[in-house]
């Protein structure tokens, strides 16, 4: 069971460091996973240097989706927007440090999908965006 839900996941799920809503913000994106109703909203402020100055997520869902969102936000703060646009599935898996079946992978990738679809200005995020 420890393989499944590493302490870090439970920790970030129970006590997220970046949960909230930034006001004002430069970007705001949201989407949900229709399979399970998980919902993620991300708000973001960009610095003059083109790097992520501040970010936060809001939403509800399973531990995997919420912990991933928190870990993702943590990982992008201070990063150039252009680099953030390149992030993919592996980044999330590295953050979580566990293996996931196809269904749970969708939970894990929801926040990244929301983030990238937002940065690319797409209305709806295709799965291929985070492959």
């Amino acid at each position, binding site marked *: *069971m420890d393989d*499944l*839900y590493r302490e870090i996941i*439970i920790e970030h799920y*129970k006590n997220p460091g970046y949960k909230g809503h930034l006001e004002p913000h430069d970007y705001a994106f949201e989407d949900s996973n*229709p*399979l*399970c*109703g*998980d919902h993620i909203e991300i708000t973001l402020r960009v610095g003059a240097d083109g790097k992520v100055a501040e970010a936060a997520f809001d939403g*509800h*869902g*399973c*531990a*995997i989706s919420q912990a991933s969102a928190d870990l993702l936000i943590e990982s992008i703060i201070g990063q150039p927007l252009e680099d953030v646009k390149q992030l993919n599935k592996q980044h999330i898996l590295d953050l979580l440090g566990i293996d996931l079946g196809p*269904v*749970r992978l969708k*939970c894990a990738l929801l926040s990244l999908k929301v983030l990238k679809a937002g940065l690319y200005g797409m209305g709806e995020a295709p799965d291929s965006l985070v492959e």
Partner: protein
Amino acid sequence: MPINPQQVRAQFPTLQREVRPGIPLTYLDSTATSQKPLAVLQAMDDYYRHSNANIHRGVHTLAEEATALYEDARAKIARFIHAPSARQVIFTRNTTESINLVAYTWARANLQAGDLVILTEMEHHSNLVPWHILQAERGIRLEFIPVTENGTLDLEAYRALLQQSPKLVSFTHMSNVLGSITPAAEMIGLAHQAGARVLLDGAQSVPHFPTDVQALDVDFLAFSAHKMCGPTGIGVLYGKADLLEAMPPFLGGGDMIKEVKLRSFRANSIPHKFEAGTPAIAEAIGFGAACDFLTSIGMDAVAAHEHEITAYALERLEEIPGLAVFGRENPHRGGVAAFTLQGIHPHDVAQILDSDGIAVRAGHHCAQPLHEKFGIPATTRASFYLYSTKEEVDKLVDGIYKVKTYFG
């Protein structure tokens, strides 16, 4: 005779499996699909190893054997649901295709813009989306029998809707989420009095308790083999003969025709009219074997066993603080318990249970509008069948306590 679960379980190879070394499978997901007994696997394997041939038009021995096996299977299924004749049993891929067949043929031939179709709020997506498509295409009207807090259908509202002269009432005989068994015979009688036809979604009823289409007087009945010990890839649409005969064909191709000219064709008689191309032959044979298997155990015994297991499960689940069973109040229910656990997402519940080999579903179970109505985005669902045991229920309960500790 009451079911002896150990004897029954011995016939299901998957139930002997370990999910991971040392962790046996506790399969509580039969509402999604059932496990398959050896007799069914054997029947299909025998067909492939011995009599495999294309059917209906062949003169050679294998083709005749295959045709006889295929048509015998149809007859077995007809008997299983007490159909007046085997030609009223049409093979489809699954319940979903059966419902779509009615929507594409009977409904398109009989429904005009403004015509009313009555559904319920507890329908599976398979009994919603075909009607959404028709609504968009034809402008038919859809109304829904509400589901009450206790998981039953609001029959007063149904009676009121029937005043609006519906053409069709289409509803499930048992909810795959609430477990509610609907009063189908009564509802069909009322629909007929109002001049409407009735399509019954039997995906969860035909596998779990005796079905008599003549006693129900139902116009159409849809069900799937894979939920009743049979193979994937095959389902049935039963229909009243006069309706089926009057319906236009659905898919065009080999076997569904009497005669083909370059620019026209004449359709075959039922059931063939609705079975275009090479059918799922092995699967039909497996389906027939599944009916034999269930009949040998007795559908009354299956229902009684599930009733006992479900009562025990509800009792045990209710002990758990923070756990709420969806539609708990309805006494008239089948072997399904969908629940929420305070503060823990169903996906997490299901995944942590899986680490102990306990297989349950998490999500909206293809009944999104029902979940939405009650403001619950998802539930965890445990479901039972003839091979389920009280020990499995105990494992489930232990597992849920573990989940709670984990997130505690």
